[in-house]
């Protein structure tokens, strides 16, 4: 059974069509990514999937429950980290966790045990009784994640969960989400951090302007766009990327830190040209590598092609 079935979702705000007939399904236990540029309709889609917004038309079924008819029961089985999903600053971390556990109907003893355990897992055991208003942004976000997971839901929605976080908090949160997915929970992640999606998700759905562009595994998407390969090279001194721009075998050349990245459909020919230029200019190569297309390349290409 699919954990989520989304069929022909449409949502309009005034004159703006935010979502224009999106359909996809997410399998049970899957780690599914929803990718798109800002304003693509990711958050609106996730809000309709989690019952925050009612679609104008179309349907959402969650764990076999129609969100129009059985949204309360469906919501009991979900954990959601909304885009704007803070916790209560007047309450302590522990009180926030216990409050959410109450909403999910956990009995008292279980509430207390889960809150204690979650605080430990999130590295907040010592600060658990401090009011959240005294926490750093990373600590608040950790509590926010804890609130969504306190009832160990079979389905988890994460809307940009690591946006603007420090490295330590980001790692901790992603580890916790991965662990939950490993234990059988279905996870839906919206992000514009393509590397994160590529590392975590079994399938990604790329949406733009309220429409699905493609749904596939990150690896297969890369393979589809094999022609978007690149050669990355660094020389012993600075070389302007424009010297490659006139080459017919080069699609695009750009600086990437102290390296040059040259996009091509024929890496062999580009390497030959690099060697020729090296001889011509008396350069030394520090490093050189051929790279397949990243998910970012796929994303950019798709969103460029279909706009």
């Amino acid at each position, binding site marked *: 059974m699919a954990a989520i079935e989304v069929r022909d979702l449409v949502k309009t705000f005034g004159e703006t069509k935010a979502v224009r007939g999106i359909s996809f399904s997410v399998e049970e236990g899957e780690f599914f990514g929803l990718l798109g540029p800002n304003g693509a309709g990711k958050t609106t889609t996730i809000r309709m999937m989690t*019952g925050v917004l009612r679609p104008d038309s179309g349907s959402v079924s969650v764990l076999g429950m129609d969100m129009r008819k059985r949204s*309360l029961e469906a*919501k009991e089985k979900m954990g959601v980290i909304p885009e704007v999903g803070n916790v*209560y600053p007047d*309450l302590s971390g522990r009180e926030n966790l216990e409050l959410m556990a109450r909403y999910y*109907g956990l009995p008292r003893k279980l509430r207390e045990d889960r809150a204690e355990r979650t605080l430990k897992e999130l590295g907040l055991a010592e600060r658990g009784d401090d009011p959240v208003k005294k926490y750093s942004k990373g600590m608040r976000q950790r509590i926010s994640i804890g609130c969504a997971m306190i009832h160990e839901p079979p389905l988890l929605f994460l809307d940009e969960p690591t946006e603007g976080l420090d490295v330590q908090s980001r790692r901790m949160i992603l580890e916790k989400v991965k662990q939950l997915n490993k234990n059988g929970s279905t996870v839906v992640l919206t992000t514009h951090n393509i590397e994160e999606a590529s590392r975590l998700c079994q399938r990604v759905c790329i949406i733009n302007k309220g429409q699905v562009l493609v749904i596939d595994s990150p690896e297969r998407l890369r393979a589809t766009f094999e022609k978007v390969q690149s050669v990355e090279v660094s020389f012993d001194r600075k070389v302007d990327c424009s010297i490659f721009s006139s080459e017919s075998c080069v699609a695009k050349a750009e600086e990437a830190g102290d390296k040059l990245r040259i996009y091509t459909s024929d890496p062999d020919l580009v390497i030959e040209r690099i060697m020729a230029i090296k001889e011509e200019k008396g350069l030394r190569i520090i490093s050189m590598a051929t790279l397949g297309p990243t998910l970012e390349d796929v994303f950019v290409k798709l969103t460029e092609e279909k706009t």
Partner: protein
Amino acid sequence: MNYRIITKGVLVTARKDVRIYYRKAPVFIFGLILPTFLFFAFFVGRDLDVAKYFPGFLAMSLFFTASSVGPLIIPWEKQQGTFERLLTLPVNIPILVTGDTLAGAGFGLIISTIVLLFGAAFLPLTFPLATILALPVLFILGNICFAALGVLLSSPAGRVPANIMMLAALVRFPLIFISGIFIPLSELPPEARWITYFSPLTYLVDGLNAVMGQVNVFPIALDALVLSAFTAGFLVLASWTLQRKALKGL
């Protein structure tokens, strides 16, 4: 309809509101300090029959306290960024509205009970046996009704609590002047009385007048019925408005 989830949602929401919002400054200012000042402004230094005006004052303090929590909750939640999380929990808008109303009613009930006990202890009040049983009914109905009014006032809100607190003051002040608090209903000329019929506070003042042996205009049962109708109307309207404005300010 899943009554277990609905009941749990209402009670947990009310508990959350009690824990967080009872201690907020605007609740104290608009719920306690303001009616106290009004009382002093009206009664002190004037040769008034306090027992005659006490039902009106009690109704006014109940009205202010019960309707002081509701206007704060939704804009405060939106401002803090907690409202969207609430919407993702196993609750819906009517559950949130009912929970917020219950929290407001609880605050009003506590404070107005203290005022009543104070009045009963120190003022020459009489409670006719025939109507005394109506007192808890009117108290509970009045508190729920005005708490629901408070929630209704905040239902179209964005994320600035101060805007709604001002709007709430703009609505509440005129109501106390057209509800028979400062001029008893029975003393109003018939041509001026019709306007008081539009205020829910009128029916609480009238009911409390009956319970405390003062002159009432309507039967107590009618007062209770009209208060119930206003309550239902406020709850439905608040849910409908909030449903449409839920994402405003997010």
